[in-house]
């Protein structure tokens, strides 16, 4: 087991531990959480639900709420557009149908709802994830770059965490079974 020390003494983003399996990472994350670490993040090539639970401290995602709002706005917009244009702004006798032919307006209302909801969900997700994000310190770790999206399992405890202490945290990570721990340069 090697122990690489940081070449620099400047501030760092955090410490990144690499594990060989998702299971190990999950356990380590659990321990870290119990140890009181909060400003941390785990990285996997595929979603691991349990892991997200731990890292996000069992908070529910806000995406559904945003999506719902989008849907409601969309429904109102679609309905309003049709009623206003057909019955208020420029009413016309079309095939002897009433100006407000509401049954005929249902399809467009529905489509608007879905359209707005879907975009709200998508955009909401990206915003919550802070994407797009051109730069992030974790990519400074070589191992992360080559393995994270393939078959690497990483846990990064960030320097901003109250309990973070460069050497202590490193030891903590090592004894959670990390294959290797690296400084994450800023």
């Amino acid at each position: 087991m090697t122990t690489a020390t940081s070449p620099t003494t400047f501030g760092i983003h955090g410490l990144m531990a690499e594990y060989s399996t998702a299971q190990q990472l999950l356990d380590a994350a659990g321990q870290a959480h119990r140890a009181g670490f909060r400003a941390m993040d785990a990285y996997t090539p595929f979603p691991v639900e349990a892991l997200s639970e731990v890292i996000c401290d069992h908070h529910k995602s806000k995406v559904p709420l945003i999506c719902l709002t989008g849907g409601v706005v969309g429904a109102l917009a679609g309905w309003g557009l049709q009623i206003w244009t057909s019955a208020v702004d420029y009413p016309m006798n079309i095939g002897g149908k009433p100006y407000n032919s509401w049954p005929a307006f249902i399809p467009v209302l529905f489509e608007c709802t879905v359209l707005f909801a879907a975009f709200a969900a998508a955009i909401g997700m990206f915003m919550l994830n802070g994407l797009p994000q051109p730069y992030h310190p974790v990519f400074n770790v070589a191992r992360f770059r080559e393995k994270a999206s393939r078959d690497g399992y990483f846990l990064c405890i960030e320097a901003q965490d109250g309990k973070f202490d460069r050497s202590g945290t490193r030891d903590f990570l090592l004894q959670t079974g990390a294959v290797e721990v690296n400084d994450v340069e800023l």
Partner: protein
Amino acid sequence: MTDLLMPHPAPATPGGSTTTGDCHVEWKKPSAAPVSVNLAAARERLQSRGGATYWRSLEELAETPEFGELLDREFPRFASEWPDGVSRRNFLQLAAASLGLAGLTACTRQPIEKIVPYVRQAEEFLPGKPILFATSMALSGVATGLLIESHNGRPTKVEGNPEHPASLGATDAVTQASVLGLYDPDRSQAISQLGKAATWTTLNQQLTSALTAQSAFGGAGLRLLTGPVTSPTEARLIAALLESYPQARWHRWDPLARDGATKGLTEAFGAPVGMRFDLAKADVVLALESDFLTAGPGSVRYARDFADRRKVGHPEGAAATMNRLYVAESSPTATGTVADHRFRIRPSQLGGIVQALAAAVGVAGVAAPPLDTASAKWVAATARDLAAHRGAALVVAGETLPAAAHTLVAAINEALGASGGTLLYSAPIEADPVDNLTSLVALLDEMKAGKVDLLLVSGVNPVYDAPADLEVAAVFQGSSALRIHHGLHDDETAAYCQWHVPATHYLESWGDARAYDGTVSLVQPLIEPLYGGKTTGEMVGALLGRPTDDAYTLLRETWEGQMGGETFESAFRKLLHDGMVPASALAPSQPAWVGASVSAAVQALAGEPAGGELELALRPDPSVLDGRFANNGWLQELPKPITKLTWENAILLSPRTAEKLGVKGNDVAELTSPDGRKLTGPVWLLPGQADGVATVHLGYGRTRAGKVANGIGFSAYAAQTLASRYGLPSVTLAATGDSAELATTQGHQSIDWMREESEQATERAIVRQATLSEFEQDPHFAHAGAHEGIDVNASFNPGFEYKGYSWGMVIDLNACNGCNACVVACQSENNIPVVGKEQVARGREMHWIRVDRYYQGDVDEPSAIVSQPIVCMQCEQAPCEVVCPVAATVHSTEGLNDMVYNRCVGTRYCANNCPYKVRRFNFLLYQDWETEQFKLQRNPDVTVRSRGVMEKCTYCVQRINRARIPADRDQRQVADGEIQTACQQACPPQAISFGNINDPAAKVVADKKNPRNYSLLEELGTRPRTTYLAMVKNPNPELSA
């Protein structure tokens, strides 16, 4: 097109020149060209045209038969925007350039605008407000009184003159289309000598020298060939000519001339008599091979009088009102479709039928010949019915019957006491009536004999439309005479005359003519002659040595002579204003009967040949008649009654006969006459056609008519001989193995299709119908049926109320005879484009009103044929409006289904969803935007639609507005009858009523209250504003049993 490229025949020297002989042979059969595209040759041809041709060479190349062939080989039927369709569709553009060179522009041809500067406006001339002028159009010399709508000096629309006895405000299809003839770009545009432009002066120099030579021996070498003349002015001038040249001769030729009647009546009464009918008085009418309701002199008036007797309102008195019509004919005609009893007979049977009738109604000296049982039965029944209505009965003989038959029919009418009642004899309306054929033959014989030195051919085209065995072309070729042709087109005959002088169209002319009843009708010009041009009067004037006197002077002379006096000016102005001379109808007379004539006639009929396996009947075409209107795009694209064929003629056979002969519809077949004359054309299956009869329409296969007509159809004159002017008793037919695609607007050439069409029409009660007795039992028969007692208008929606005006239309199916006048009227009123044969074949004709035709009963033995005009129903709950994504068709506050062209993006969803299929889509750029003449013709009140937009009947909304605006200004309601739609106005039987259905006094409301009133497809809940009056037939119980 080859004809255009042919050099003009050289002046004929005795013996004739081979070169011209060749070229005459050449363009008699232009299809002789090789099937390979010879680009070099084509290019050479194009150059030979000279002038600014290069920018339109492509179209012209496309016009050469070789290229046509190539296209057909390269792209068979699957090609859409290709072959002749394009050239036909663009026929207007093709002609544009010549016009451009001629320097014609809208304003130089509008005398009114030139003369009257807007600062000092002439009386009742408001820019944008059309003015009506009274004039009249003569067809075969017989006039119909018209009112012409003129927009800023441009005649745009022909209407009937309500005051005129021959019209009563209506017109027929050809008259409606005549305005397009005025603007025909192919009209000859300059005096020419041997094909080179020449002047009136040089012509007159030649004439003077020729005439001085003639005067020496009383004009023995001077000949005049015209159509029948009823014009007092022309008659006066010709008389004067014959006076100053006593040896000169005046010949007549007109393929439509009613020689049979003229001859037959002359036999009967010893002298020519004029004959006209009064159908208002006729209770029972029998028409023998006669389409008297839509063709021939007075047909417009006859149709009206006849229909007035059939527009029954309530059963009370219906029996008294309704007349009964028997029709015996070989090929179905419009008249046949309104008959109560229609008998399919072969022309060769007519003689026997007539004799049998004569015998049955008690004409002395006639014995009934043996007849087959069926014929015997109906002859007996018909005769009984006619006799039972003595004094109110009438027998009408068709012009194709032999003279002897006409004599006998006259005798029958005598026996029925028709004369003085349903039939009026008078002095002939024609000046010096002759037998046209004899007259023409006489002329040709004299030409062969070299007795003719100077010949003026005015307004006739014998080289094309005379019987083939007269070989007019060759005779002209061989003649040494100085031949001057005068006509609208540089036509087939012009090609055989050294001189050609353009004639003026009647809308450019001063003149006069007599109507069917003799009423003298004035002809006054609506526009300055577009290309100079002379009237027949002026031509005769030139022969009289008065080349500078114009038609106006000559006309005035006539009437000054007649009326004279100092009040003449005002009187003459009154004549022009009214368009006719009051009370100038010829007085009825009772000519003395020549006893011997009957027996003579019987003998003559006995000599008539019996019919063979297959008879050939030659008939004038319902649209282009004898071919004189062939270059009129509107008439070419007009679906012919019954066949619904456009753009060509065909060999019409009954399905059964076709089966017997082993041919199918669209097969190209060859008819061979005993003397070896051949006709090659496509076969067309026509239910209702008599078995064993092949009917072929004349008027096609023109070679020098113009870009529209040249090379379409085949000329049936090729089979015509002196002996067989109207057909042959026995011909043979053989399929050539080829087949042709014909352009029809309804149905298909398969028996299954025809059968299903008629079955479904019956099952769906599209045309509702009852007999008089059924009508008496149940006046509301039109509403009996599946959805009886169901409120088809039930709806969740309150719907809209139409408080002010609310337009509606009623079409009386009992009056309509399917004559097509409405179709052309609509086309000229609403700037509807001509799309060409190929597009019609694809089902893309643009007519806003169509006349659907349905066969009743089995297609082998149709019990009846009915016509149903379909316009936009202006549904109150219009399916088309709901589905338009861009709201391009919406409802107006007056209940109209408005079409907003500039909003339309052309999804065609509305057309799909229209149950009546009245919407028309501009699949390509059908409108001609280039040709100057057509710009002149258009109605400025109607948008000219472009490619990619939908269009349809608007109830002539422009006319509604034209009436509503002044009414609103005067703060009054538009009075009933103030607005007439184009179709309504033109309709000879006045089958259409239109008006404000909120006005209880309106005729349309009365009609909608008529128990016969029903809505088409009412079960769809569309609430149509156009409704129909169901048909009531008045069959003879004896026969219907």
